[in-house]
């Protein structure tokens, strides 16, 4: 053997590494269109991206006009009124859609000698590849342009503030995701969150009389303190700085800019604290308890053997799969926020309608909080329903090895989702009752029957789609699940179809002038949906066999 020479080891430059990562991401994107499915995914992503771009451009126009008007008319402080909703959208939208998110997982690069700074950049850059960032950037561009037209001499400052606000939002979104993942990975935190969720639902009831009283107060007296305080918060600071610059108040301007930089630094520090733990290799784990638990006196074997009481009367594959599915979901951080969102939606409706005059359409909408919330709850679950093998990942192989038919597998999964949906609907009903009083009986009945109809339609299509377009889902992560463009579009089309069918029933009842007949019409549709469900369930066995190789390959991806 030839004489050994030491390998030429040099510290890898982080710029080189970042370039390599960017290149490999690009190559992965290019390679992904080699298959038909990949090409369809790309088309779907472009399609979805196009609509978000349209939304962003509309926002950019609005922000541009608003910025131009406010700054041009000496009301720079009012720009905060646009930046606050933007911040809320930027932070809440990714959380609300975390079950549908399409981020890449940057932690896979930690196996390489990647420096910490490079890891942070990669993490933030990967996290920024989402719809909220696209819309946010376009809105900020519009705002910058509008303000620059109104006050050309302030253009550099406007650009600087817009960039600072952009960076703040990017870092804040990443920080929220990173810490939530960390907290929600622990059972105790999840339990606390569940209690908070219930408190929120019941607490809203006590807010109602307070807000009723507050509605009679004059706005300036009520909000003056808040308006002053918000000036020193990130969405208020750029507006405050611009107003100060326009008024020639140099010290106020400098203080606002420094404070905005401090906010960015503070968020970066909090994010960094979490990412450092990630970087060191800390994993999200149920197995990291705070303190060792005392063993109970019963024997280990007996303790290990004890089945959950609630399922103790049920045996066989279907309840076993349903129980397993519910256990999986209970351990999933990504499910918590989407499940809270329907109730928050009701709260938003309620507060939106408080300021509405009688007959105002927001006030009218509030009466339909229950059906709207219930429909949204189903929409939230479609991510699971339409890819119900995705959470099993490599474990999905087991269903092919076990002596079960796929119709049993899907029946078990649908049973679990049905139970989850029923629970969510009950919570939404309670919230709707607390906020607005009980909905009309016919509306309650129509909503419940309509949910059965819609759920059966979704289960029918979802089971088939789960087999034909599977995608691995990592339940321990908020977002970062990889693209599911085509199935998302198909799911959207199916929701449109379901809504249209339900709409026909509503239309008939409306034309007859007998809305109380609506539950009956929807019940007829539900029966038809049940027949369709049984037929599609029967198809799953054959489809599972014909698609097993592609399915296992897709779900076993690292």
């Amino acid at each position: 053997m030839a004489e050994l020479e030491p390998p030429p080891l040099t510290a890898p430059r982080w710029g080189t590494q970042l370039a390599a990562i960017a290149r490999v991401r690009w190559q992965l994107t290019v390679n992904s269109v080699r298959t038909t499915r990949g090409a369809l995914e790309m088309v779907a992503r472009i399609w979805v991206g196009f609509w978000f771009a349209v939304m962003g451009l509309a926002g950019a126009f609005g922000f541009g006009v608003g910025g131009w008007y406010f700054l041009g008319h000496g009301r720079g402080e009012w720009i905060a009124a646009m930046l606050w909703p933007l911040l809320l959208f930027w932070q809440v939208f990714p959380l609300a859609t975390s079950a549908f998110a399409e981020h890449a997982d940057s932690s896979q690069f930690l196996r390489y000698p990647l420096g910490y700074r490079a890891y942070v950049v990669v993490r933030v850059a990967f996290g920024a590849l989402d719809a909220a960032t696209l819309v946010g950037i376009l809105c900020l561009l519009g705002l910058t342009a509008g303000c620059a037209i109104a006050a050309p001499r302030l253009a550099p400052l406007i650009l600087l503030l817009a960039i600072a606000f952009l960076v703040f939002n990017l870092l804040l979104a990443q920080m929220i995701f990173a810490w939530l993942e960390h907290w929600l990975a622990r059972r105790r935190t999840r339990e606390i969150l569940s209690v908070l969720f219930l408190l929120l639902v019941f607490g809203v009831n006590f807010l109602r009389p307070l807000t009723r009283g507050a509605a009679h107060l004059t706005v300036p007296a009520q909000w003056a303190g808040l308006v002053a305080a918000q000036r020193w918060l990130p969405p208020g600071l750029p507006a405050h700085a611009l107003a100060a610059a326009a008024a020639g108040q140099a010290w106020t301007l400098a203080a606002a800019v420094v404070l905005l930089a401090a906010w960015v630094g503070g968020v970066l520090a909090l994010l960094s604290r979490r990412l450092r733990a990630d970087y060191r290799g800390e994993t999200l784990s149920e197995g990291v308890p705070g303190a060792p638990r005392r063993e109970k006196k019963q024997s280990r074997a007996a303790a290990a053997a004890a089945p959950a009481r609630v399922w103790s009367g049920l045996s066989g594959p279907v309840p076993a799969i349903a129980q397993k599915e519910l256990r999986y979901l209970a351990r999933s951080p990504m499910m918590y926020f989407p499940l809270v969102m329907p109730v928050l939606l009701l709260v938003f409706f309620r507060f939106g309608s408080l300021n509405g005059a009688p007959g105002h359409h927001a006030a009218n909408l509030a009466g339909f909080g229950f059906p709207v919330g219930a429909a949204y709850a189903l929409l939230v679950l479609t991510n699971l329903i339409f890819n119900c093998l995705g959470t099993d990942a490599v474990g999905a192989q087991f269903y092919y090895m076990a002596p079960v038919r796929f119709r049993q597998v899907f029946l078990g999964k649908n049973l679990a989702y049905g139970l989850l949906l029923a629970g969510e609907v009950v919570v939404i009903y309670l919230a709707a009752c607390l906020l607005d009083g009980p909905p009309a009986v016919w509306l309650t009945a129509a909503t419940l029957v309509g949910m059965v109809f819609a759920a059966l339609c979704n289960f029918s299509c979802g089971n088939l789609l789960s087999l034909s377009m599977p995608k691995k889902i990592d339940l321990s992560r908020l977002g970062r699940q990889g693209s599911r463009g085509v199935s998302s579009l198909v799911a959207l089309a199916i929701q449109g179809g379901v809504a249209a069918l339900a709409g026909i029933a509503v239309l008939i009842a409306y034309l007859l002038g007998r809305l109380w007949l609506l539950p009956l019409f929807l019940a007829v549709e539900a029966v038809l949906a049940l027949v369709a469900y049984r037929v599609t369930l029967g198809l799953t066995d054959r489809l599972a066999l014909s698609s097993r190789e592609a399915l296992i390959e897709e779900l076993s991806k690292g």
Partner: protein
Amino acid sequence: METPAVATSGLTRRFGQLAAVQDVDLQVAPGQFFGFLGPNGAGKSTTIKMLTGLLAPSAGSIRILGLDLMTHGVEVKRQIGVVPEGMALFGRLTGTEYLNFVGQMYGLDRPTAAKRTGELLEFMQLADQRKKLITDYSHGMQKKLALAAAVIHGPRVLFLDEPFEGVDAVASVTLKAMLQSMIARGATIFLTSHVLEIVERLCSHVAIIDHGRLVAQGSLDELRQGVEARAAAAAGDASGTAVTAGERLTLEQIFLRIVGGTAASPAAAELSWLS
């Protein structure tokens, strides 16, 4: 004649133009500890996937315990246990929950599944970890759990794809004892492993696949005799593992002679930069 535990006829699997497995005729008698060997990429995993229903054959037939796998899939699966290559575990269940789940999937009632779960966790020395999520198990622990799941219903045929990979020496002894006791009770075990010493120690019969084709099958002694006869007939020995009088070939030597490999690759000498 006794019905074979595993029998394939003309088993073929093509991926496009590539024939990963071609015309494989396997016969595994009931009660055999059967080793299925081959170099990397020879077609072992593809074969075992077809035998366990994870992959459809392009041609040929598979009969397990006399039942056609294509037409009696569920009946066959009820009687077999599998530890596949990727283990196919549900990472976000605890060990207890997983074994209970698998037991019920194989038709055990809840109390029986729970009882066996406790016993298996104790046996596999995983009882301390019963509340831990599987995703937090070490590789070896996952392997033991996968094996526990494969036997919870008392299968008559057990398919094991690299079962000892990543398992420590202590656990390995336990697992081997368990497998041998299963054989003693009449079960059949179909095993693939790259550790030829383990196969030699455990298996009574062996088949070797190379480039998708079955190149040898029989008891260890039959394979040994075949190789020795061929060596004697050949004038020279290119493999570098000549048979001398009175020498008893190891399985590794038999394997290398059959698949045409050598003990060391000359290419390794060229990697001068490798420290």
